[in-house]
């Protein structure tokens, strides 16, 4: 520990700390622009110059290491003169166009110029003008305002993992720019808007819409991936204008993914697939807007009829795992109240053999503990796109002591320094993981069971197994793809075995905001009920569809659509106009996460409740209220909650603080089935980042990003040659349905595989996400 005195106040800091660290510890503010606690030290803005005793000149606090007994003065005459000098330099070429600048009111330069600037400029020459750059659909530029702090450059390089911005040219001609003709395409790009201390980088969707001081700041939780990022939703006139990160070091740190940040646009979406504001009822083949009373009474009557005529088991409920805990809890209560056990939210899952083993999958450890791991194996995950911020955590950890390995089916660049990697076809995933288990067992000198006797680990599997076996604090994570895999239970059993052998923690990267919450809310079928896949494979007479778009969100869209079309009654509860108009009989406008209070339980089992940030749009109502009224209409007991908190209390068994004891990844006695048939040509289906849930799909700006390009049939050169196809050709892809797509060369796809994205309307005509497909020229 080193002792330091700043402005007369003493403190002790660890060796290697900087003066800025010590000042932060003491709560002393030193003005700065380029310094950011999450980024490397640049020391280029020079705003944090302070006086250090015995130093001949002022030193930058951000880059000056503390020495024992150091005395620092942050507001002495010398320090303030230096800071004011720097401020003057920063302002001479800055346009001072605050009245028309989007950053006005939340600009660090503006704020600090109040304290350190002068009333009038001594610089009377012409100012520098810099041409704007096109950084894509999310980030607007006014590069003349740039003060060259390089926070954005360092962010893309260090946090996002790919240097998409740099400072070109020299001296006064220096400009921050992307590579020529390139945009900033990172899934974390929006963070550079927050990082930019001036108005050089601003939000394109939000631009010129409101002033920051006109907006209320309300806390909320991201409804997208399993991380549950904490957010500030900014609102005005009961409308969401912008989303910003709410710092939570344990979850999202100070970042947000672009999906978290920009999908709010969907909340204000209008038009054909925009917001629904009135209940709709289909009568005599015609859609009519009706009042809630009419709609709910119709549902009540018809449900009773279906139950009477076909039995309660003819009723099923499909819920999106992006629904709140309260919604999911009341939905399953309603369905079970009617007498059916058919309720599920695992819409993209295909292997349900773990059901009945009391598994409520979760991460297996707190997110904040990831950096402390020394070995990590990720199985079956499009990491960057499925879990942008968890991938970011792994990226930072891998730069230090964590050795990360990846076993997957597509060689997308994770931008993580990987220790070992194996990319295999989906049908070979179980065998490859079995190889890892065997290699780890051999490295640890443990016997493996008979099922693995015939396995010969590949070189990559051996590397992964040995890497895991050599660690002290290790973890194995099963990604979305592993959860959706046709042999998910075998993958689970192998991962569990691997964890047992290596002493690793083992868990799941939660696909959706409330994947864990759905388990806690019991929105999963019990022994008597049907799971999501069976509900659609064995069509029911009546369906509840909550927040989901089955033609995009289910493992087998073609089958889902067929089942729904054949039903007597489909009740779609959704904030949006969806394709439910094709198959539903009643569409109820329910509140998106911003218009209802609710709870998401993130992948680490953290219960995060939030309030509505705006009033429901039009006649939209929170789904939990709708379900409660329906329960009353159906005269079911226990539907008398008068707040979402009451629903939550019931759902969590009165222990809202922790659901830890309800989480369990361990399932014993699961058969390991390594007999896999290898089809001639098999599908790999990813769920593209901006098509993963109904909200993201409707965000206009996200749809213009490179990540939202329409899906193609992606194959490697060998597969293309075998099929006699060339990139650009139109092909008809068949797998339980058909889709016509262009062919694209993708060297990251294994041999004999075709990567066709799911979750997109262009591929919603297809059947299962995995299996044998055929490709022919269209």
């Amino acid at each position: 520990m080193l002792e330091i005195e700043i402005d007369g106040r003493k403190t002790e800091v660890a060796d290697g700390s900087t003066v800025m660290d010590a000042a932060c510890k003491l709560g002393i503010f030193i003005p700065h622009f380029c310094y950011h606690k999450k980024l490397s030290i640049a020391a280029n803005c020079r705003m944090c110059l302070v006086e250090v005793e015995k130093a001949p000149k002022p030193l930058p606090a951000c880059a000056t290491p503390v020495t024992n007994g150091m005395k620092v003065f942050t507001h002495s005459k010398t320090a303030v003169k230096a800071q004011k000098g720097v401020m003057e330099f920063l302002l001479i070429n800055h346009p001072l166009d605050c009245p028309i600048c989007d950053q006005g009111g939340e600009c660090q330069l503006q704020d600090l110029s109040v304290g350190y600037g002068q009333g009038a400029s001594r610089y009377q020459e012409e100012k520098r003008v810099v041409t704007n750059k096109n950084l894509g659909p999310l980030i607007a530029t006014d590069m003349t305002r740039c003060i060259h702090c390089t926070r954005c450059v360092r962010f893309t390089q260090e946090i996002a993992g790919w240097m998409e911005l740099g400072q070109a040219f020299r001296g006064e001609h220096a400009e921050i720019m992307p590579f020529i003709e390139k945009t900033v395409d990172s899934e974390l790009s929006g963070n550079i808007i927050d990082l930019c201390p001036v108005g050089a980088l601003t939000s394109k969707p939000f631009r010129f819409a409101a002033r920051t001081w006109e907006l209320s700041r309300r806390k909320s939780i991201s409804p997208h991936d399993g991380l549950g990022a904490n957010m500030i939703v900014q609102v005005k006139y009961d409308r969401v204008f912008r989303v910003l990160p709410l710092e939570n070091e344990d979850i999202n740190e100070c970042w947000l993914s672009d999906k978290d940040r920009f999908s709010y646009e969907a909340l204000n979406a209008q038009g054909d697939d925009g917001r629904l504001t009135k209940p709709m009822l289909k009568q005599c083949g015609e859609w009519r807007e009706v009042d809630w009373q009419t709609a709910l009474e119709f549902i009540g009557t018809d449900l009773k009829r279906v139950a009477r005529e076909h039995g309660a088991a003819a009723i099923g409920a499909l819920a999106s795992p992006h629904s709140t805990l309260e919604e999911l809890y009341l939905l399953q209560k309603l369905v079970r109240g009617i007498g059916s056990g058919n309720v599920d939210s695992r819409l993209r899952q295909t292997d349900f053999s773990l059901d009945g083993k009391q598994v409520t999958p979760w991460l297996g450890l707190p997110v904040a503990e990831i950096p402390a791991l020394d070995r990590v194996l990720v199985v079956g995950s499009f990491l960057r796109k499925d879990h942008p911020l968890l991938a970011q955590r792994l990226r930072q950890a891998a730069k230090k002591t964590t050795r990360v390995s990846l076993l997957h089916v597509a060689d997308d660049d994770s931008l993580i320094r990987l220790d070992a990697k194996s990319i295999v076809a989906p049908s070979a995933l179980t065998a490859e993981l079995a190889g890892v288990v065997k290699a780890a067992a051999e490295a640890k000198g443990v016997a493996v069971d008979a099922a693995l006797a015939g396995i010969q680990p590949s070189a990559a599997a051996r590397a992964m197994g040995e890497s895991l076996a050599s660690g002290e604090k290790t973890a194995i994570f099963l990604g979305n793809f592993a959860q959706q895999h046709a042999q998910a239970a075998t993958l689970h059993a192998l991962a569990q075995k691997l964890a047992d052998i290596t002493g690793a923690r083992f868990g799941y990267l939660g696909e959706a905001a409330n994947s864990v919450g759905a388990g806690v809310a019991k929105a999963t079928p019990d022994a008597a009920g049907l799971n999501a896949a069976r509900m659609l494979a064995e069509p029911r007479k009546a369906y509840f569809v909550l927040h989901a778009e089955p033609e995009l969100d289910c493992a087998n869209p073609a089958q889902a659509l067929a089942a729904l079309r054949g039903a007597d009654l489909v009740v779609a509860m959704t904030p949006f106009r969806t394709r439910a108009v094709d198959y539903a009989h009643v569409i109820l406008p329910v509140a998106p996460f911003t218009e209802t209070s609710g709870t998401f339980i993130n992948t680490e089992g953290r219960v995060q409740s939030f309030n509505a940030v705006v009033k429901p749009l039009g006649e939209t109502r929170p789904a939990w209220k709708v379900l409660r009224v329906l329960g009353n209409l159906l005269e079911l007991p226990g539907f008398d909650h008068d707040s979402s908190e009451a629903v939550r209390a019931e759902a969590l068994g009165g222990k809202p603080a922790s659901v830890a004891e309800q989480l369990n990844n361990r399932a014993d006695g699961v058969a390991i089935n390594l007999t896999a048939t290898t089809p001639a040509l098999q599908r790999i289906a990813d769920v593209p980042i901006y098509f993963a849930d109904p909200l993201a799909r409707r965000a206009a700006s996200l749809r213009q990003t490179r990540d939202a390009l329409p899906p193609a049939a992606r194959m490697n050169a060998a597969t293309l040659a075998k099929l006699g196809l060339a990139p650009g050709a139109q092909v008809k892809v068949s797998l339980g349905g058909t889709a016509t797509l262009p062919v694209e060369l993708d060297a990251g796809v294994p041999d004999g595989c075709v990567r066709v994205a799911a979750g997109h309307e262009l591929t919603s005509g297809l059947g299962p996400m995995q299996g044998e497909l055929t490709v022919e020229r269209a």
Partner: protein
Amino acid sequence: MDTLGFILDAEQGERGWRLAEYVQRGGYAALKKIISEKIPPENIVAELKQSALRGRGGAGFPTGLKWSFMPRQFSGAKYVVCNSDEGEPGTFKDRDILRWNPHMVIEGMIIAGYAMGCQRGYNYIHGEIWEIYKRFEEALEEARAAKLLGERILDSDFSFDLYAHHGYGAYICGEETALLESIEGKKGQPRYKPPFPASVGLYGKPTTINNTETFASVPYIINEGGDKFLQLGKPNNGGTKLFSVSGHVNRPGNFEVPMGTPFKDLLAMAGGMRGGRKLKAVIPGGSSAPVLPADVIMECTLDYDSIAKAGSMLGSGAVIVMDETTCMVKALERLSYFYFEESCGQCTPCREGTGWLYRVVHRIEHGAGRPEDLDLLNSVTDNIMGRTICALGDAASMPVKSFIKHFGAEFEYHIQNGKCLVPEDAQRAGSGFFKVA
């Protein structure tokens, strides 16, 4: 007066540069001596300390001390780097050293590698002297063929290889950490120090960077001993020094003279003032050194301490001589333009300040100066100096400060009258470009 040329010959330094010719002059004797006598590395560093050799690149840091900073016990790679990125206006000595005596630099670097336990070295050569870069590559090949470089030098256990790397002419790449960035393939921008290159240098490894002339001085010290080198000069300022004399003299060029030689003598060697005109001012150490008026410089001897006492720096030994026909405002405008164009743009005071300085001096020169401009220039230089990541900010400021200090009256005349104190035709006569009747 004779020049004492162990690096360059008296007459403009020309001498045979090939290996055979260098060996004939006694080249590589120092290396052979070290290898055959198995001289311990610490003795070499001690000898350098004794010699009072100071860095010839401009800062004048004692070389022996610098070498002793290299962590002895460090197990990984360590590097020795030669800074031949000679970009300081007025300096052209390293170019001639590499042109006429490349093997002396190579030998010095090998000895440095031996003394500091480095296996690899780089010579970063300025981008605008391509021929010299090519010649250096040839010299390296000669040395490798003769087993003076590479694996097991002269069949000893010592291995050292050396590579040439050429820049593209950016002045900032002469700053040692920007030079390292450039070798690494990045944009040449100085790093913040600490950490210093001796602990975190090239590719993050301990690195020592010296000027070409510094390395060229090393073989002499090993051959003749530190004491003899010291005695060539004066206490604390050992050896000889190359001075690049340019400007209004009859015979501009490089002159190797002992440290402590009176300025008068150097001026005489350079053939005296052109056209017999009166000396007005001298920049004694490259464009970033403060200017000294004639009466001050004529009393100086050429060594670090004497020039520093007079208020300037010996710097890289680039002596820019200006006679009475020089417009000091115009001279400063040109210097300020140089720093404005060469600032790397990384840190605020330099990026924004150098342009500001240039523009104000420019408007004074062009008759649009304002009465408050001299105070403004002084204040802006105060805000730049000592506030930047590297020394370029100081380098840009010192000429401005010193020109105004010593020649303020000329600036004021410009501001008040919108024209120069030195008549236009006198300036033309002095420039040498115009035929004046």
